[in-house]
């Protein structure tokens, strides 16, 4: 029999239901894998083994009623868990233990999931490589010299390395999909408003969305069903029914109409990536879908628009870290102003400071109209591009990332190059639509390549259906790295 840690959630649910295994067996298997691999991988921010075992023992309820009963799950370090360290992998939140659970955590608990630990991430989700984490870089399980992507790099890496069954991440500009692509797992960013943001420490409030990192599409559907839904604590969550994704995705995709935007196959996209995605499109056609070239003409502005809006919101969201109530507080504080200044100087890393400065500038009097306001207008144009395509098509297919995993240190000194890693994922956040990245091949160096499927707002069902059909017809998702 395979080790439990390498199974998917739906496989484990079958075993749990039959009574072949107990939740503690899965936990032990995970803890063993962590012991073996984590030193090299560095995917986790915190994990308290004794607590995890306690939680397993204390599991109440019944699996029939609770969709995740007995399944261990890892949480990105920017999602609040009551009483547990939640630091966004930043020094400035040193020692912060939230007094409350995020809505998604509450839902996971109600569904009987077992909270394991927190996963590593770029500081405040600022990055595409996990290199900006205060705790150090996570390695890509397929190549220890390479990054896992980011910012949910820890969540993607631990799932890919079978240190986890599945994990939660957050996606502001591609932070779930890009690391999923680089680590060869499934990463789903739901529609903005589909999953409550209450308890997600904000990076850019109008773009952030919690989502899933899983070993296959069915697990993404199971986990999404558990965390989705309207939350009265989040005014931006939307009150629309949550479909039964796990059963709906198994319908075939005959006749489904898919657009392939020409702007996503441009220079700068790695040849192997292009080839793999083109081949995947052929496969999807063979499964009965109609794929046609479409145009999203404002795509080239997306990165600029994104980095203005996201940093503007971030500069405001991160202003609260001032050393007064919680987290890091500089010892070198005389006056109140000194306390603010030194706390922020010592507490934030370089990339956080860069984005705060950029965002502060974009919102400043005299620049607001030229930067923030103009970016908002272009955001509307980008949204219109997508609306137009979605009038005729059910989904859009693109590469997730222009390249496979890059080397640690390769882009960290050059922020602009790093920012371009998000070029294909950003638009989904600007427009609020759902997107999923699934494995669609490997490079000659055995690095995973990801395929991105984007859908209409609140139509996660369609993109998961396409992803599921493709996954059933291919083997990519079942390959595992050897550590």
């Amino acid at each position, binding site marked *: 029999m395979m080790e439990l840690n390498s199974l998917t959630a739906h496989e484990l649910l079958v075993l749990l239901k039959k009574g072949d295994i107990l939740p503690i067996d899965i936990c032990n298997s995970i803890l063993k894998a962590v012991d073996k691999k984590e030193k090299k991988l560095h995917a986790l921010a915190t994990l308290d083994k004794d607590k995890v075992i306690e939680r397993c023992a204390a599991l109440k309820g019944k699996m029939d009623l609770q969709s995740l009963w007995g399944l261990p799950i890892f949480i990105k370090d920017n999602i609040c868990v009551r009483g547990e360290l939640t630091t966004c992998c930043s020094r400035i939140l040193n020692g912060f233990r939230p007094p*409350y659970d995020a809505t998604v955590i509450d839902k996971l608990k109600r569904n009987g999931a077992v909270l394991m630990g927190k996963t590593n991430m770029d500081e405040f989700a600022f990055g595409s490589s996990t290199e900006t984490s205060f705790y150090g870089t996570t390695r890509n399980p397929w190549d220890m010299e390479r990054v896992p992507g980011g910012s949910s790099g820890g969540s993607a890496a631990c799932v890919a390395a079978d240190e986890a069954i599945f994990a939660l991440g957050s996606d502001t500009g591609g932070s779930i999909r890009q690391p999923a692509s680089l680590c060869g797992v499934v990463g789903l960013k739901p529609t903005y408003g589909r999953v409550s943001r*209450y308890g997600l420490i904000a990076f850019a409030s109008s773009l952030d969305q919690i989502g899933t990192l899983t070993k296959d599409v069915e697990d993404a559907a199971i986990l999404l069903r558990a965390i989705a839904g309207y939350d009265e604590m989040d005014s931006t969550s939307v009150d629309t029914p949550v479909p039964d994704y796990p059963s709906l995705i198994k319908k075939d995709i005959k006749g489904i109409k898919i657009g392939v935007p020409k702007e996503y196959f441009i220079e700068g996209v790695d040849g192997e990536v292009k080839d793999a995605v083109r081949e995947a499109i052929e496969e999807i056609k063979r499964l009965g879908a109609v794929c046609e070239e479409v145009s999203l003409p404002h795509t080239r502005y997306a990165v600029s628009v994104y980095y203005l809006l996201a940093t*503007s919101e971030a500069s405001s969201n991160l202003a609260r870290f001032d050393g007064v*109530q919680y987290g890091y507080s500089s010892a070198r504080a005389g006056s109140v102003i000194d306390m603010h200044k030194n706390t922020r100087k010592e507490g934030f890393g370089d990339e956080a400071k860069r984005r705060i400065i950029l965002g502060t500038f974009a919102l400043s009097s005299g620049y*607001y109209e030229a930067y923030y306001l103009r970016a908002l207008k272009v955001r509307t144009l980008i949204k219109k591009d997508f609306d137009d395509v979605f009038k005729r098509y059910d989904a859009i297919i693109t590469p997730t990332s222009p390249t496979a995993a890059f080397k640690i240190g390769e882009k960290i000194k050059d922020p602009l190059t790093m920012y371009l890693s998000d070029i294909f994922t950003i638009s989904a956040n600007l427009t609020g639509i759902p997107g999923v990245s699934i494995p669609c091949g490997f490079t000659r160096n055995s690095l995973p390549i990801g395929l991105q499927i984007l859908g209409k707002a609140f139509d996660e069902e369609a993109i998961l259906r396409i992803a599921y059909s493709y996954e059933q017809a291919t083997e990519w998702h079942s390959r595992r790295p050897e550590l």
Partner: protein
Amino acid sequence: MQYETVIGLEVHLQLKTKSKVFCGCSTNFGSPPNTQTCPVCLGFPGSLPVLNREALKLAAKVAIALDCQIAKKIRFDRKNYFYPDLPKAYQISQFGQPLSGKGYIMIFVHGSEKRITIRRVHLEEDTGKLFHKEDASFIDFNRSGMPLLEVVSEPDISSPDEAYAYLRSLKSILEYVDVSDCNMEEGSLRCDANISVRKAGSEKLGVKAEVKNMNSFKAVKAALYYEQLRQIELLDSGSRIVQETRLYDSVRNVTESMRSKEEAHDYRYFPEPDLVPFDLDPELVRGIGREIPELPGPRKKRFISDYGLSDYDAAIMVSDKALADYFERAVSLYKNPKVVANWLMGDVAACLRERGGAIGGLNLSPEDLTAMLKMIEAGLISGKIAKALLPEMIETGRDPGSLVKERGLQQISDEGIIEKAIVEVISENQKIVNDFKKGKDNAVMALVGKVMAKTRGKANPRKANEALRKKLK
């Protein structure tokens, strides 16, 4: 040189909701520090605001009462600045699409009426409160997230007296719509003033100062008088005025510079992404409008036409809704509005001043007051007895009938008893009697007084007067 003064006021008002504007915490005043807080009003990471619809409703009520144009769609914005009492380092406020546009208030100064335009009314959240003990500072976040309404006037106000009148009128309206305690000492109403002076007749506005830290309407007036004079003296001496924020010191009655324009904050307003824009349903707005009672302006007109009050009396009667309600209830029981008004403005007001508090909290029902007035009219007690009786009624809350009976204060109209007192008074006051007989008609009043004293105020003075005159003829 002749100058004219230009003043605009920003009034912040705490709305009387049960819970805070973006979370469920209680709004009780005076609870122990930091006992009415939650992750949202403490600005904890990951927390999100949710608009309290009741706060929006009360805010709309004020805007409608001020005749403001209510927006169809409203939005919240973030106002960013660092201060320890501001836990998110931004205040959720309204900038681009506030609750309402222009409206107005009528004010009354030195006997004439003036219309002051309201620029806008918007809803925002309050900050926490800092306090300092010995060498440490503390923050109480109980106030953080309280619903705050900002009412901004146009610079239509031309004197400190007008500013004072504006605040009185505004407070009166706010009390009518019953949305706020309007207590400046407790901080439920706060006022900042922008003031500048310019050459009389000049079109161009002078350089303004923003004056803060006034804790009463009188302090606003005093601060503006000081600031007006300071600016005029500067200009007269050939100096320039710098744009700045100044704090009023009520002990020394001066304003002092707090920060200059260069040090002013750039608030970097932008739309609050955590709150979606709200459409204000016109039907809902109409419904809120229907809940607003008759306001002081129209009510005053009605008091003049329906009750025959003078302009002055009517203005006083309507200035306080509780007083106006009391008046109307009393008039429905005793149909002599002028007498009721005189008692309310005279003896009742004096008792109120002495005891402190408002008419609503007074232990004197309109029923008891008018019962007393009816006893005077029926000649059962004298006006003088009534004046003496009033404080006791207020003290004990008892009705005048039983008090009068118990104390034996019924007016004496029995001619025999009056006659007896008159005989004694005449024999004891020959000098006054002679004065009267020599033609000094007023002297009879002195004799009436003596008769009243002898009967311990209970003699019917009209009867005593008549009997005296008859006797001395």
